[in-house]
Structure formats: structure tokens, C-alpha cells
């Protein structure tokens, strides 16, 4: 009789430990995911090198370093280009 009560108590204790462990793991997981998603101090993406996307680089090549239009002067210049 006494042995069966002790066994039952041990079984309840094991169950309680398992329950507490599972609950702690669940809380830790939810907090980790929440922090990754919302906390300002956590980066949302891997840091990438300071390099423009390939599509942007193509656009830059096509437009940014494009030549201007010049022609012979027709009057005395009001401004000069020196050096920067």
C-alpha cells in the first residue's frame, strides 16, 4: 500500500518535471523568435557587403557615367571650371 503511494507520487513528480521542462522550452522558443522578429537590436537579415545589386550596377553603367553634350563656344564664358 505504502509502496504504491510512493510510486504514484514519483510518477506525478516525473510528469510535473516533464511539463515544466516543456513549458520552459516553449517560452524560450517563443521569446527567441519574438526577439528576432521585433527587437530593434536584432538584425533581420545577414549583413551584406557594401555592394550594389547587380541590376543597379547595370543601371549605373548605362546611365550614371554617361557623357554630356558639348559644342564650340559662342560667347565669352561667364564661368570657368578650375580644379576640385
Amino acid at each position, binding site marked *: 500500500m505504502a509502496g504504491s503511494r510512493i510510486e504514484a507520487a514519483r510518477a506525478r513528480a516525473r510528469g510535473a518535471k516533464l511539463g515544466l521542462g516543456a513549458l520552459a522550452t516553449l517560452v524560450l522558443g517563443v521569446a527567441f523568435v519574438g526577439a528576432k522578429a521585433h527587437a530593434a537590436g536584432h538584425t533581420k537579415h545577414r549583413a551584406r557587403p557594401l555592394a550594389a545589386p547587380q541590376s543597379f550596377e547595370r543601371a549605373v553603367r548605362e546611365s550614371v*557615367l554617361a557623357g*554630356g553634350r558639348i559644342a564650340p563656344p559662342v560667347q565669352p564664358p561667364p564661368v570657368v*571650371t578650375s580644379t*576640385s
Partner: protein
Amino acid sequence: MTVHRFRAMGCDVVLAGGDPETAAAVFERWEDAFSLFRPSSELSRVNASRAPVLSVSPLFASTLELALAMAVETGWLVVPALEEVHLAGALLARRPGLRLDLNGVVKALAVDEAAAALDEAGFVACGGDLAVRGATDVGLPGGGAVRVECGGLATSGTATRGRHLVDPRTGAACESPWTHVTVSGASCLAADVAAKAAFLLGDDGPGWLDARGMPGRFVSVGGDVVCNGAWDGSLVCT
């Protein structure tokens, strides 16, 4: 045409066709963010910070991205820093103590923005950088002139500030056969970056510009004027 003058970014700004106060405000905004001579500027604070990762403003991030795009376009000749930097959105990571320098693009961007704000045909010039709204005749280093019909014109060289251009390939001040390199670009930014790159490329500068269809005029140390094909194709070399 009324010409206005004021000082900004350590240079004389010459303006025609617009309100000088509006233009001065444009220069002030860029200088306030990127001046290396103002301890309060964002660039100075970034350079002074010992933190390995920093949060930067959207203007800072977009300007840095543009500077990097120009570095790619010039084969890493005109660069914002001599070491690797990383950017993820507004987060900037670099070795603490690394000095960023965005002057390679900031002055030209300010000139382009000020020219876009002109009320009528005119121009904005700052140092060697110039942007026009409507055709403008511009005097050239060593004599002569050219009519800039649209976009910008920029000159880089050693005449005003000595050997100030650093060659990222060596980390030392550039040795170039040129004293002045003047480039016509679709914008002042394009002209300025291309002029710096062509200067750093030395004898390869004229061909490098031709490959991009950019007119370039070079004044050698001996005073000779050399124009590339794109320049000669637009006008007789003067």
C-alpha cells in the same frame, strides 16, 4: 544674366539663374551631413565612433550606396574608403577608425541638386564642378572655352590642391601625367567621378573615357592639351 557668389564646402560657388539663398541651403544641407571639417556632421561622428556597427541616416546610407556604385563603375578608383565596409539597410559596419570620405560624390551631388532648383536657364559652379540648365559657355584650364549644352562639366587635377587624389591601388597620392582633366557628363556627378578616375588612370584616361562615350580634355604637366575622341567628335580641340 545676374551672377551670384557665395562660399560653401570650402570653395567659391558661382550661380546664375536662381535664388542664391535656395542654392546655399542645398549646399548647407549636404555640408552639414558630410563635412569632414565639422565635428558635428554625421560623417565626422561616424568616423569618430569606436563602435563596429552604427545606425546611419537614410541620406547617409543612400549616398554611401551611390559612392559604392561609382566605385564599381570606376573599377574601384574613386572609392569612399580604402578598406571594406558593409551596409545592411541603415546599419553600417566597418573597422572602427576607418576614415570614410564621401567628398568624391557629395560636392557634385550638391551642385546637381542646386542646378535642378534653378528658376531659369543658368548654372551652378563650385570648385571644379559645374552643372548647367540650358547651354552655358565655360572657360577651360589652360585657356579656351566650351559650350556645355546640358549636364555637367568637372575638372580634377593638382593645380589647386596639389596631389590630393589618393590612388586606392597604392594608397599613396597619385602620380599622373596630367595637371587638369576636364570631363563632360550627363550630370555633374558623372563628370566629376569620371574626371577623377581619368586623372588616376594617367595615360589610359583618354581611352577609358572614350569607352564610355564621355568627352575628356587633358592638360599635361608640360602644358600640352590632349582631347579624347569623344571631345574631338563634339568640337575642335581648344
